[in-house]
Each structure stands twice: as C-alpha cells, then as structure tokens.
C-alpha cells in the first residue's frame, strides 16, 4: 500500500476565508440580503424600476393601501381663488396682451385632470409621489453614495497610511500632523467648508464630503499595519532583490494588509450611509432632482406631526435592513479573515 502524494497546494487566505464564510449561516444570509439590494440598485440605475418616481400619481399624503383612504383632504382651509378678471389701468399697456388673447382663443377647453389614486402601496408623500418608488430610488442613491464615498475614503486613507507607515520619519510626522488637524476640527465645520468649496450641490458633493472627511480612521489602521510589516523579513528580502519602494509598498506589503482594508471598506459603507442622513438634515444632502434615504427621513420630520408616518417607516425599514445585513456581513468577514479568532 503506497500513499500517493497528491500535489495539493495549501489554500490561500481568500479560499480559506470563503470556505469559512460558507459555514457561517448568519454571514451567508447577510451576504444574500446585500446582494439582493445590489440587484435593486442595478435595476434602478438602469432605469428598469422606479424610473418615474417623480410622477405624482396619488393625492397629497396618500395613505398606504393597508391603512385605508383618508376621508377629508388633509390640508388646512383654503381660501377659494377668485375668478374676477383684472381691470385695465390707464396708461399701462401689456406688450403681450394681443398675443395672449389670440392664444387663449386657440386653446381648447381644459381636459379633465387625471384622477389621482386615493391610496398607494406604501403611501404617498406631500406631492402625491409613490413612497415605494422613492424608497427604491433612494436605495440606489444611498448605496451608491455610501459605496463610492467609502472607496474614496479607503483610497485616500490607504495611500496616505502606506506612505506614513512605510517611510516613517519626516513623511510620517507630516502626515500625522495633517491627521491631527483633520481630527481636531469639529465635523460640522469640515463639512461646511468642503460643501462651500464645491459650489454645486448634489450627489457628487455628498460623496466628496463623506470621502474627504472619513479617511482618518483608515489612515491610522493602515499606518499601524505598514509600521508592523516594513521590518518583516519578506520586505527586506524584496529590498535585497532590488524592488522599488512603490513596488514594495503596493505589490508586496499591501496584499498582506488587504484584509484590514477590506473590513474597513465594509465598515465605512455602513458609516457613510448613516452619515448621509445627517448631512441631509444639515442641508448638505442630495438635490431635488433625486431622492435618498436621508432626504426622505428629513422630509418625514414635519410629516410625522401631522400623523403621516409612512415615509418615515419605509425609509427607516429599508435602511435598517440593509445596514443590519451589511454590518453582520462585515462581522462575518472580519471573523473569517482574522487568523487569530477561532
């Protein structure tokens, strides 16, 4: 009986991680949920769903279907707009008077206003827009903002952290100084400053604000990792064979640090999705041409006092489910990538 030696390469970090993840039930469920959300994002971005979210299909503040329609219209009193025509004033001539008179004659009688739905699946907002569609579109905006901003923050933090940790000395001091200054300034002021510099408001501005203020935590961690690794043997070996600094930093050390970076990326996606809500509250959120969870929550503040709770509920639920799933997934990721924890 001879044992045949099979050439089995030992599994790499990632393969091992994936195997371990498969065994973590909670982790797998969260991954599935996150993927489901990403599918929704893709569909919304391509315009397959919720593309007509700004259409006012319902009455103002239409309640959700399961709650039943409102009896009287929910607004306060409205003074009827008088129909008396304007009198002429002596000496004042309207250059457009003739044109308007002519056009009025040409216009047919006004068509009946389209009937608007009394209820909508998840309710309607103050203009009668479908909350379900808004939540879907909001998912796209919020997730895209969160992910792109997280990528940006990770990019900045990793590059700066790598330089600081690897080179040490003056470079480290300088970057540490920048880090101290950034972390000492109150968040509100930093946000305001960046928002004011980027004159145009909108989704891009939100991404930049989040990315440019959120890199500091990553910087610190990556720097610590690079400090640890640069004295290791494999780095000295790489030096001996004549690699450049850049190669050493990013081709050799980075793969060993990447698991930390990945976890940070995941954490920051969650953090930025939540920060976007605060930014909307401060008035630095996305513009009116789109909708995000933050803008929906902001709107719902004044609606709640009037008893209109559905926009708040919808946005909070959508966000809570995603953030929970993403956080649990991040935990699982951290567990499977950490060689220490059993």
């Amino acid at each position, binding site marked *: 009986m001879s044992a045949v030696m099979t050439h089995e390469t030992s599994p790499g970090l990632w393969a091992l991680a994936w195997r371990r993840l498969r065994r973590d039930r909670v982790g797998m469920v969260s991954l599935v949920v996150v993927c489901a959300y990403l599918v929704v994002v893709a569909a919304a971005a391509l315009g397959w769903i919720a593309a007509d979210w700004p259409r006012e299909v319902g009455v103002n503040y239409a309640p959700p279907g399961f709650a039943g329609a409102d009896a009287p219209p929910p607004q306060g009193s409205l003074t009827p707009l008088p129909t008396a025509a304007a009198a002429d004033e002596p000496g004042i001539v309207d250059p457009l008077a003739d044109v308007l008179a002519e056009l009025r004659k040409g216009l047919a009688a006004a068509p009946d206003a389209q009937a608007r739905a009394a209820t909508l699946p998840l309710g309607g907002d103050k203009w009668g827009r479908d909350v379900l569609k808004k939540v879907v579109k909001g998912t796209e905006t919020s997730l895209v903002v969160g992910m792109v901003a997280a990528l940006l923050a990770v990019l900045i933090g990793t590059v700066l952290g790598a330089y600081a940790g690897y080179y040490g000395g003056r470079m480290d001091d300088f970057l540490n100084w920048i880090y101290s*200054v950034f972390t000492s300034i109150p968040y509100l*002021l930093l946000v305001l400053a960046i928002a004011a510099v980027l004159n145009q408001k909108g989704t891009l501005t939100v991404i930049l604000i989040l990315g440019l203020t959120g890199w500091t935590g990553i910087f610190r961690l990556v720097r610590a990792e690079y400090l640890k690794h640069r004295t290791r043997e494999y780095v000295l070996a790489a030096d001996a064979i004549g690699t450049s600094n850049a190669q050493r930093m990013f081709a050799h050390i980075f793969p060993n640090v990447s698991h930390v970076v990945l976890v940070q990326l995941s954490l920051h996606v*969650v953090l930025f999705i939540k920060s976007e809500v*605060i930014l909307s509250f401060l008035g630095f959120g996305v513009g009116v041409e789109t909708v995000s969870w933050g803008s929906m929550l902001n709107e719902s503040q004044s609606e709640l006092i009037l008893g209109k709770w559905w926009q708040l509920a919808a946005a*909070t639920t959508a966000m809570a489910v995603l953030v*929970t799933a993403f*956080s649990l997934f991040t935990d699982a990721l951290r567990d499977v990538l950490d060689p220490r924890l059993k």
Partner: protein
Amino acid sequence: MTAYMIRRLLQFVPTLLGVVLLVFMLFNWIGGDPAYLLAGKMSNPEQIENIRRQLGVDQPYYVQLWIFITQVVTGDFGVSWATNEKVSTIFATRLGPSLTVLLPMLIVGTLLSMVMALLVAYRRGSLTDRAIMIGCTVGQSISILVYIIVFQYVFAFQLGWFPVQGWGQDFVTNLIKFSALPVLVGVAVSLAPDTRLYRTFFLDEINQDYVRTARAKGMSESRVMGVHVLRNAAIPIVTHVMIQLPALLAGAFLIERFFSIPGIGREVLLAVERSDFPVIKAVTVYVALATLIFNLLADILYKAVDPRVQLK
C-alpha cells in the same frame, strides 16, 4: 514620563497652528460674509463697508491672522458678531447645559453597555450572544435622527412622560426633568455600538493567559469576570470614552437642537448659520485643544496602568 509629556505638549503647537491656519483659510475663503447678515433689510455698500470695518474684516489677511493667533494664546476671542455677547461668557454658560446632558448620558450608557457586553462575552457563542449581537446590529442601523424624532414624539408628545424640550434654571431640575429624554435617546443610540466594541475588549481579555491560569487555580467564574477581566478591560473602555468626549461636545448639536438645550453644540450650529466667526474660532480651538489633551491623558493612563506599553 515627564520627557514624554513635555514632548507631546510641544507637539500641540504645530497641530494647533495647523488648525488655526485651516480654520482661518476656510472661513475667509468660503465662510460667508457676515456683514450682509448684520446689515439688516436696507443696506447700501457704504453700510456694508462700515460693518466690515467694525468687525475688522477689512484689514489685510496677515493682520487678521496675527490677531487670531494672539487670541488663541490669550484665550480671549472677543465678542459674538451677532449678539455682542462675550465669547468667553458664551462658553461658560453653554458648557454647563452640555455637560449636564452629556455626562449622565456617558455614564449611564457606558455602565449599561459594560454590563451587556460582559454578559454577552461570558456567554460567548451561545444563542443569547448571537441574539443580542444581532439585536445590537439592528439597533445600530437606525439613524439617530429617527431615534430623536420617534422618541420625542412617542415619549414626550403622545405619552407626556417628559417635557418635549426646554431648559430650566437650577441644576437639579435640569438634571432630572429636562435631561431625562435627551439622555434616554443618547443612551439608546450608543448602546448598540458600545456593547459591540466592549464585547471585543472583554473577549481580548478573556483570551489572555492569565484568565486561563486563574480558572485553573480554581477561581470562580464570576470572580474571574467581575474582578480581573473587568478591571483590565476598563482601561480601553475608559480611554474610549475619554477620547470621544471633545467630539461629543461639539457634535451633540442634533440632540441639543431638537431638545432646545442651550449647549455648545447648538451654539456651533447657530454660529455657522450666522457666519459668527469669533464663536466658530473659539469652538474650533477649544475642541482641538480638548481633543489633544484627552488623547494625551488616554495615552498616559495606558502607560501608567500597563507598564508593558511603550510610549513612542
């Protein structure tokens, strides 16, 4: 130790300088012209010029910067451009309310989180552990804005258990009546993330050799957890709280705004809205200084307690 402290204190200077420069640049470049706000409904260019002169913003930049630096050194930032109240008075009077809400929030929140984290770490891997952790994650996934809105609506507005907002004159009323709901909201929001964090601290300790030794020596589990693990994990917990405090002071603007607490966070928000540079300057410098000091204290605490820690 002394040499280390002196070195760190000296390092404050370049950092503060950096902060001063950054704030100065930012405000002058994009801070908004307060003259227009102060000028009222009808203002002509002359009046605007006059206001700018009175505020001192018509002077060349290096003069203004020098004035700013002297202000930082003397600690006197002048008066608010909007109300003429002395900035130092603003701070003295707003600090109290901020702390009256923040400190109970931190104490209650930390204690509660510690207990939960200890419990969860003790029963690590069990169903209780997973259930509570998932519960924490869900709790953490709801925006603080939602907590504030809903808590205020349900507990104050509908049930009437707390005042919806406001602030009184004496300390005891403020502590018991007006701080109660803000503290409740703050604790609810921070409970989840803190529990998760402290759980990892506790777990780190539990995995240490000394715990295994203590168990081997026959020490009861409750004594192991309640005395040894707790004591050692208390350090990172306390430092975590300490480091958060300065940021919380300025960052509590949401809670202060909704509950009308005349604290520093609300003042910062007001100052930013009104382009009130003296107040913004003072807040930034104080918060920066506080952050540096508390970070230093945290490092020293670490060193004092754990001789293995090498201070760079």
